[in-house]
């Protein structure tokens, strides 16, 4: 049965004739000490119109197989395979174009032979641009959807049913978890799109207020709520109305670094209207996580904007905003660290914290290749837009395809390979993974598979990190990442513990980032709490000396003998004030390795590009632990 008609090179064919019921999770053994599972919650396939029009041949079938370790063929014919399978994935195709793409690829539809659909099937970027503009304008294209948009809205349901069936077919409780989800992709209207290029590296795209919606089980609403239907705040309201009973959903915002200052706007909703109590409460209920890292760079923090440190220069894919400007650059209200600290003040003032975010990482790639984050094997993420090293580095400008970001090489080389999400869960099932997401027992990485534990308590021994019963004690007497500590007048102890990814570099150090608000001002301090190579932190600065790890840029060989396979510490905040709200999260840094752009340069026998660093310190960010005075 050919469910979706095919576009050329894009076999959106569901091979199975009947809808499969997902396997049931009963009988999968639970580990009360919890395991770290690696996966991602943000991935596009040819079900997303942009992915389709970029020529990506991979449907959800291919993506689920890829996640489990099978090779797939990318646009242009190259093969890509994960070094190791993922444990879980949510495929999050864009809600906005599901109906349009269904109509345009179904030969039986009334608009199949119209110019819009023909253009889409011919990969005409102008047709895509028009649909993207129609999302910003919140008015579906009448030449595809009819004057009332109904044809597209109706066509969504069929695709949404397939999305659920696909997830059911590949779910293997205990081995591989598929979570049903989609991406809601609202843009900011009225962003001035300038001409970016060599002298103007700004991101030439409208501001993004995008969120992924992740469902706990196969109890889901019968359709999706897209940006055509309303704002992000309206999405959350819709979810609470439509996803009831056994249905549970959470939302995860991403690319706050591309939100042009709107994601963490104090006092204002995404459309600029003032906060209301029910909107804040709902956000706190339904949005426990934020995506801190992905292909379009890091959203943790940005050097020179708000609360920064030297590691905030990491993978910023947009430039910092000049004073007074907000568009196409990184500015205030766009970064996660500032948001979680601002959340403390909001909580103090209003009794609700809309920015109480745990962290996840993802790729957001549009090639249907979840978890394809290896620096030494990066093959692009946008179909024909960046499928060769030449295009990614802009080495041959005549060949490079402009995607609207300006000079393509300059834009693509700033992108990253994308990140992963680590989840601490009792077992690898939908319910266990989703519940861990919901309680924020998660961490994001820049693509590496570091394992990291983080616990806090008023009742831990001073050397808990050396205790063989560490995990048991840590859970019994304290809270894990994502948890809350209510003040008892004394300083809490934190236990941090990380082990390396055998396929990436050894660990350089573990840091604890503390945030608080002092006299109305957001504050942060970085403590190096465990350092490799026998180095101790300077008690005055809280920082470790550099461990001297290095990588040979010419060969990408890591000099041996530096860094640690694991690091751990039991730590107390030396400046703890029991009356002050505070938030703590862990950042684990690896020794440097070659960045993907350096590997690409080697493939082309050119020097690594100067616009981006030649090396990268892969890292992990744990969800915070919040301290509140009682």
């Amino acid at each position, binding site marked *: 049965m*050919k469910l979706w008609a*095919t*576009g*050329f*090179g894009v*076999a959106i*064919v569901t*091979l*199975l*004739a009947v809808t*499969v019921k997902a396997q049931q999770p009963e009988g999968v*053994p639970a*580990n009360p*000490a*919890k*395991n*770290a599972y690696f996966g991602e919650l943000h991935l596009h396939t040819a079900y997303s119109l942009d992915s389709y029009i970029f*020529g990506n041949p991979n449907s959800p*079938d291919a993506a689920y197989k890829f996640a489990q*370790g099978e090779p797939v063929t990318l646009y*242009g014919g190259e093969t890509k395979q994960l070094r*190791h*399978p993922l444990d879980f994935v949510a495929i999050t195709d864009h809600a906005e174009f599901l109906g349009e793409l269904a109509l345009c690829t179904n030969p039986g539809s009334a608009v199949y032979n119209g*110019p*819009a659909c023909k253009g889409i099937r011919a*990969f005409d970027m102008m047709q895509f641009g028009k649909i993207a503009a129609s999302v910003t304008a919140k008015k579906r294209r009448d*030449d595809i959807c009819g004057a009332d948009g109904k044809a597209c809205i109706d066509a969504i349901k069929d695709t949404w049913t397939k999305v659920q069936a696909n997830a059911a*077919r590949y779910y293997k409780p205990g081995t591989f978890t598929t979570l049903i989800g989609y991406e809601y992709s609202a843009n900011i209207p009225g962003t001035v799109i300038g001409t970016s290029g060599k002298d103007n590296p700004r991101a030439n795209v409208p501001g993004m207020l995008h969120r992924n919606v992740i469902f706990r089980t196969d109890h889901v609403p019968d359709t999706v709520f897209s940006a055509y239907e309303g704002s992000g705040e309206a999405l959350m309201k819709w979810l609470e109305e439509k996803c009831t009973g056994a249905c549970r959903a959470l939302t995860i915002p991403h690319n706050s670094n591309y939100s042009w200052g709107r994601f963490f706007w104090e006092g204002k909703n995404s459309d600029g209207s003032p906060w209301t109590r029910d909107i804040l409460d709902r956000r706190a209920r339904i949005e426990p996580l934020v995506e801190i890292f992905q292909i379009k760079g890091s959203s943790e923090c940005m050097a020179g904007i708000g609360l920064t440190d030297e590691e905030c220069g990491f993978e910023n894919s947009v430039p910092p905003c000049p004073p007074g400007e907000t568009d196409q650059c990184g500015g205030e209200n766009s970064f996660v660290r500032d948001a979680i600290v601002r959340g403390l003040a909001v909580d103090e003032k209003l009794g609700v914290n809309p920015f109480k975010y745990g962290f996840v990482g993802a790729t957001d790639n549009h090639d249907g290749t979840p978890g394809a984050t290896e620096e030494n094997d990066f093959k692009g993420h946008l179909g*024909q837009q960046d499928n060769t090293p030449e295009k990614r580095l802009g080495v041959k400008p005549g*060949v490079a*395809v402009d995607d609207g970001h300006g000079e393509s090489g300059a834009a693509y080389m700033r992108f990253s390979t994308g990140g992963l999400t680590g989840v601490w869960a009792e077992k690898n099932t939908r319910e266990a993974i989703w519940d861990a997401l919901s309680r924020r027992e998660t961490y994001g990485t820049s693509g590496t*598979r570091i*394992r990291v*534990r983080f616990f806090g308590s008023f009742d831990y021994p001073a050397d808990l*990190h*050396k*205790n*063989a*019963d*560490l*995990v048991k004690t840590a859970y019994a007497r304290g809270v894990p990442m994502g948890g809350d500590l209510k003040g008892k007048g004394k300083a809490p102890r934190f236990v941090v*513990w990380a*082990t*390396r990814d*055998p*396929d990436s570099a050894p660990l350089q150090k573990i840091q604890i980032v503390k945030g608080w608000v002092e006299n109305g001002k957001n504050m942060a301090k970085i403590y190096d709490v*465990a350092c*490799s190579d*026998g180095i101790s932190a300077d008690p005055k600065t809280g920082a470790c000396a550099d461990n001297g790890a290095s990588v040979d840029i010419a060969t990408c060989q890591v000099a041996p003998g530096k860094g*640690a*396979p*694991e*690091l*751990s510490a039991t730590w107390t905040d030396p400046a703890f004030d029991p009356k002050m709200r505070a938030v703590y999260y862990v950042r684990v840094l690896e020794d440097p390795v070659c960045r993907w752009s350096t590997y690409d340069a080697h493939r082309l026998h050119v020097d690594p590009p100067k616009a981006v660093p030649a090396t990268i310190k892969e890292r992990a960010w744990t969800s915070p632990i919040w301290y509140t005075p009682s």
Partner: protein
Amino acid sequence: MRVWAGRLLREPLVHFLVLGGLIFAANAIRHPATIEDAHRIAIGKADMARIRALYTQQWGAPPADADLPNLVENYVRAEVLAREGTFLGLAADDPVVRNRLIQKMEFLLQDTSGIAQPTDAELAAYLAAHAADYRTPERIVFRQIYFSPSLRGDQADGDARAGLASLVKAGSDPMGDPFMLAADPEPKSRVDLAKDFGADFAAALFALPPGRWQGPVHSALGVHLVRVEQHLPSSLPPLVDIRARVHDDLMAERFQAASDAAYARLRSRYTVVVAP
């Protein structure tokens, strides 16, 4: 033979010949065959309607009569350049255009309408013929005691040796260090172990005889004493457990065969001469 065929398929000359044939065929259909006719651009009623429709779609209103000569001239310009480019063989030279052409043809080859759904017997036969692809990997159940280089520095290996000696003598477990993966009791395949401990450790562990404490074995994470409890051999799951996967794979094979056959029919029309 296979190597030769693969090389042939990668040969630019072959691509040129194949594409040249396609372009020729396309031209023969679209345009009259003589040079004179090739330089004649006929704009029919349908073409005019399309020009108007495109304009309307782009600008939200139909074109005024005064706009038409310009629109026609734009259409003519595009047509002239497209034809001249085709005559010059630019499409064949341009990797982007060439790839698009190939993709379009691949799609046309993927006519899936005549492909039958497999019967249970066919699925069972397919599984039997491809059993190696569906076997579960060999796995082991093991215990380990970890000695952390971060906590013990250079002593980790020596401490592990001393630990093994006392373990063998006293028969009790020596106290190791906290280990991140200790609580995960699941049997592990080589791939699982390589992912978490590194490939060398995986190879070492699968080579150890079961039933006693041994080591130290070094991994990417540090130093271990290990005791392999059980080898779980590879096995073939029954069809009922993996039916969806077998079905997909068999259908994918049928798609591929149909596509290959369609290509073979096209290919048979060509004679390829490779310069010596």
